[in-house]
């Protein structure tokens, strides 16, 4: 992908500013461009007569070929009949049969000449794209833009552009001319050419990859086409190409040449037209195809073609690689024991059983350089799923083609299966097996060993204290230098098992990183073909991009490209099952799969959800009474997050809820969890009063060296999509607060085991009672909330939190003390709960207004907010109700009325 990034802009500039020799009055139909040493010239005509003539020629051509086939066939048949059926065999023995002129022999020679002619016709007609697969640097000579100057180009090779166009491209060109003619336009323009190519299958394929249909661009295209000048009386209609169209055609030739192709396809014309027309770029932008997406889709087509060329070359090369134990120079010996515990990777590759390696050129070079500079063993260290095995397979592929350093030439790559090596054996036996196998490797001399997950053999010892570990044994043998080893392991295993051991000294470490986004996309693009063929579906580019993007963002404990590949297969299967064969996979399908895998709502905002988000305040107020400022602030933050307007590198939102106890801080947090994450329980709750001394940080993120995460980090790792509630934040030790600085800022935290825990999908809510006394007194005085908040931030809170800490919150929300009305509303809410429970028993429950007020008064405490209310309702409502129920005084269909003074009146339902 890096390569494309360098060349593409170049290509864009080149095609959009192509200096060319345009058609003149003298030569109204010819135009050309000098590229390197070749003069690409167009000298065909597209008017009606010429089109008809071309068609006639094609028909005649086909007729001639048909005639040649027919005559040859007849001659052959007659010859066979006359020689083998009509003549007796004895006739052959006479000399006269061979020397005298005969009709049979005449027929024979006619057949031969016919076959020769057919061969000639076939060779002429053959214009298959020859892919060299290499991009070529093309230099354009800018000055010669007139035919006068073009005369000097006689020395150069003249390339006829028309004869290089494929049949498909010609059909598109003819369609363009027909279109211009139908509109009555004077010239065939760029847009005609563009539209003409749209009906060609290869461009249709491109559209599918882009994830759009022709219908989506039909209207703007038709409008724009209508703007071309009409032919006036006496002028020809659509018999010439206008300058922009000329540039588009020549650009297509240049584009093909740049990609090392000798034929011009509809895609070349499409690209050239796209590059030369701001309108087309704008039009595609309008259907959400950005410049970059177009580039990447075009690069994708190129990747597939290159891959095909590479595959063919590989098949050809693999013909010579022996697939047995014996190498070509016959120096090897049989390796019966090794064969039992290993797989021959080169043999597998030669039999086409290994996938091809995509990208990773730098890493491959580094590995091969180790061998070139005399090293005999490497260990590839990388996270699981980033493609270590793919690289080992890639080495096998190169060994088949013999494109490796001398040390690896004419060898086979044999992968030892540690499981099979130690299966059913005591450690001592395992050691013996390993030694015997290595002995075979040494004697055979044509083997390079591969040991995947080499850490597996560490720690297998024969038992007694001084005995050797299996890995030390391997290290010892490696020191002797009689075999070549390619091993793999993960960074953690390397650190734990290998670093510092004897093995580490013998192995050259090569670190492998997770592929970046572009590399991963490239890998998926190359792999997608298999899934597509198996399931009969088609991935659009944005789907592939989404696979990489979304898995990178939401599946943190796995690595690219493996996680994307696995979900790719799943998506293909799902789409086939739902929409049948031939469906195109879009970003939404991928989002759905990732959403299930990561338990995160990802699919784009649906209508239902849209309404819910817009009415978020109402939803929250259904649970939280009062506190409108808090509710508004939180709602706005959530809407921003769901519409993807936030930065992806921080938590969804960080809030600090301030206020006295019992005013709804925790309740609002629960309401957020229920509304945004769909579940009240989607919450990681930390009581910060438990973290009052600096050493409690270990409980938070784990004890260093323990290889385990902390309580907090583990909880978030298991539930990366949820609300993090930090209760009573002011009680935590200042050192602990520093930990959260990073979380608020980067959305990540590294635990003691070195794992990075992701917080970008969490909403962090810290609640604090700090300054609540101040809030209560000031509210009583009737000071406005803004003033209270300013004072709080500047004065009261600075005792507990440093300013940079406070600044990292998206919102500091001050909860106001509850008023009597609030408490009544809360009491009402709570009684609704009681009503609901009684309703299940078939009993109607009503509360008079006076009784409600009485409850509220009893349950309200300026110090504790609405907290005592729950207890009051328990005592005054739930307890008497329970007694009534147990005594059997209420039955189904009865009504219970709560009246002042805690009186419960039962209204019996009329008997049936």
């Amino acid at each position, binding site marked *: 992908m890096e390569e494309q990034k360098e060349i593409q802009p170049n290509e864009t500039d080149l095609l959009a500013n192509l200096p060319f020799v345009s058609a003149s009055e003298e*030569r*109204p*139909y*010819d135009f050309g461009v000098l590229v390197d040493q070749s003069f690409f010239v167009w*000298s*065909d*005509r597209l*008017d009606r*007569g*010429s089109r008809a*003539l071309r068609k*006639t*020629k094609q028909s*005649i*051509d086909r007729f*001639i070929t048909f005639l040649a086939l027919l005559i040859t066939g007849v001659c052959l048949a007659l010859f066979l009949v006359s020689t083998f059926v009509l003549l007796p065999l004895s006739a052959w023995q006479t000399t006269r049969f061979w020397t*005298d*002129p*005969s*009709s049979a*022999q*005449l027929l024979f*020679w*006619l057949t*031969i*000449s016919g076959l*020769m*002619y057919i061969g*000639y016709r076939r*060779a*002429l007609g053959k214009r298959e794209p020859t892919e060299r697969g290499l991009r070529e640097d093309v230099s354009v000579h800018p000055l010669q833009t007139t035919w006068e100057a073009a005369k000097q180009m006689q020395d150069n090779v003249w390339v006829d552009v028309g004869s290089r166009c494929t049949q498909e491209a010609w059909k598109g060109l003819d369609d363009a001319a027909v279109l211009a003619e139908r509109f009555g336009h004077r010239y065939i323009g760029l847009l005609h050419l563009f539209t003409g190519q749209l009906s060609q299958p290869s461009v249709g394929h491109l559209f599918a990859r882009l994830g759009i249909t022709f219908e989506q661009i039909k209207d703007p295209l038709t409008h724009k086409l209508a703007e071309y000048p009409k032919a006036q009386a006496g002028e020809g209609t659509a018999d010439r190409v206008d300058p922009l169209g000329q540039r588009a055609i020549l650009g297509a030739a240049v584009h093909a040449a740049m990609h090392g192709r000798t034929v011009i396809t509809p895609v070349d014309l499409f690209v050239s037209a796209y590059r030369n027309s701001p309108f087309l770029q704008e039009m595609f932008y309008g259907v959400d195809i950005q410049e970059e997406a177009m580039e990447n889709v075009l690069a994708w087509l190129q990747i597939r073609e290159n891959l095909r060329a590479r595959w063919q070359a590989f098949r050809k090369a693999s*013909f*010579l690689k022996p697939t047995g134990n014996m190498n*070509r*120079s*016959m*120096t*090897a*010996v049989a390796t019966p024991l090794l064969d039992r515990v290993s797989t021959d990777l080169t043999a597998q590759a030669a039999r086409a059983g290994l996938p091809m390696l995509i990208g990773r050129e730098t890493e491959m070079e580094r590995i091969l350089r180790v061998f070139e500079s005399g090293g005999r063993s490497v260990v590839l260290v990388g996270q699981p799923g980033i493609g270590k095995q793919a690289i080992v397979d890639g080495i096998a592929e190169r060994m088949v083609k013999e494109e490796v350093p001398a040390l690896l030439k*004419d060898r086979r790559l044999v992968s030892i299966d540690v499981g099979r090596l130690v299966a059913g054996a005591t450690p001592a036996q395992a050691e013996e097996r390993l030694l015997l196998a290595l002995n075979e490797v040494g*004697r*055979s*001399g044509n083997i390079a060993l591969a040991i995947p997950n080499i850490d597996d053999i560490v720690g297998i010892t024969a038992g007694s204290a001084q005995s050797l570990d299996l890995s030390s044994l391997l290290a010892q043998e490696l020191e002797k230098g009689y075999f070549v080893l390619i091993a793999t392991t993960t960074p953690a295993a390397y650190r734990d098992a290998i670093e510092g051991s004897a093995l580490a000294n013998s192995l050259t470490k090569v670190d492998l990183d997770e592929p970046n986004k572009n590399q991963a996309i490239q890998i998926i693009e190359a792999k997608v073909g298999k899934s597509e063929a198996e399931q009969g579906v088609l991935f659009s580019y944005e789907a592939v991009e989404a696979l990489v993007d979304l898995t990178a963002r939401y599946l943190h404990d796995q690595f690219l490209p493996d996680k994307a590949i696995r979900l790719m297969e799943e998506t293909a299967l799902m789409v086939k099952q739902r929409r049948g064969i031939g469906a195109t996979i879009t970003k939404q399908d991928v989002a759905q799969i990732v959403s299930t895998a990561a338990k995160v709502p990802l699919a784009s905002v649906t209508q239902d959800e849209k309404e819910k988000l817009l009415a978020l305040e109402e939803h929250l107020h259904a649970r939280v009474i009062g506190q409108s400022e808090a509710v508004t602030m939180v709602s706005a933050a959530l809407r921003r997050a769901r519409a993807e307007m936030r930065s992806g590198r921080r938590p969804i939102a960080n809030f600090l809820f301030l206020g006295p106890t019992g005013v709804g801080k925790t309740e609002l947090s629960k309401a957020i969890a229920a509304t945004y994450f769909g579940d009240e329980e989607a919450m990681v709750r930390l009581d910060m009063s438990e973290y009052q001394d600096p050493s409690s940080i270990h409980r938070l993120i784990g004890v260093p060296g323990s290889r385990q995460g902390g309580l907090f980090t583990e909880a978030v790792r298991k539930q990366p999509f949820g609300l993090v509630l930090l209760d009573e934040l002011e009680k935590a030790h200042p050192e602990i607060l520093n930990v959260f600085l990073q979380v608020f800022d980067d959305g990540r935290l590294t635990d003691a085991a070195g794992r990075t825990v992701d917080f970008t999908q969490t909403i962090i809510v810290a609640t604090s009672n700090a300054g609540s006394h101040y809030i209560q007194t000031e509210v009583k005085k009737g000071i406005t909330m803004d003033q209270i908040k300013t004072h709080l931030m500047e004065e009261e809170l600075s005792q507990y939190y440093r300013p940079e800490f406070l600044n990292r919150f998206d919102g500091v929300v001050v909860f106001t003390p509850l008023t009597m009305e609030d408490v009544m509303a809360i009491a009402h809410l709570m009684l609704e709960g009681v009503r609901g429970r009684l309703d299940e028993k078939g009993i109607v429950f009503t509360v008079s207004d006076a009784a409600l007020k009485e409850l509220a008064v009893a349950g309200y405490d300026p110090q504790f907010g609405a907290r005592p209310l729950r207890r009051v309702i328990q005592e005054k409502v739930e307890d008497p109700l329970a007694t009534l129920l147990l005594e059997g005084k209420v039955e189904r269909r009865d009504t219970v009325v709560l009246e002042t003074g805690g009186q419960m009146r039962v209204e019996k339902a009329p008997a049936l």
Partner: protein
Amino acid sequence: MAQPLVVQAAKLFLVDLVGGVLGFPVWWYSRGAVRWSHFMWDWYASYRATLAVDVWVKNLFVPMYGSYDIAGRLISFFMRLVMIFLRSFLLLIVSIFLMIVYTIYYILPPVVVAALLYHGLGLFA
């Protein structure tokens, strides 16, 4: 240069259709010959690679089947000599055969013409 329709039609008839028939012999000895040479060379190269005489020559002093003792080395050396001789001989045979096939291409047209004339004229004479 793009020409008027009449010229195009004339060109089509003369160059493309008539030329398509008359150009046959010219093509046979020019571009056709190049194609044929490529084809035959690839064929030869694949035989040469399969017989791998160069690999055997390079490993003349390397013992076969990992037998590094004196006897093994001696036997290997002579065995390799024999194999090199055999394989070279085989390659020679193949090369001669391919050479013959290659040459046939060039002499085929005159032979065909001669045979057609001989048999055609002879029949009607």
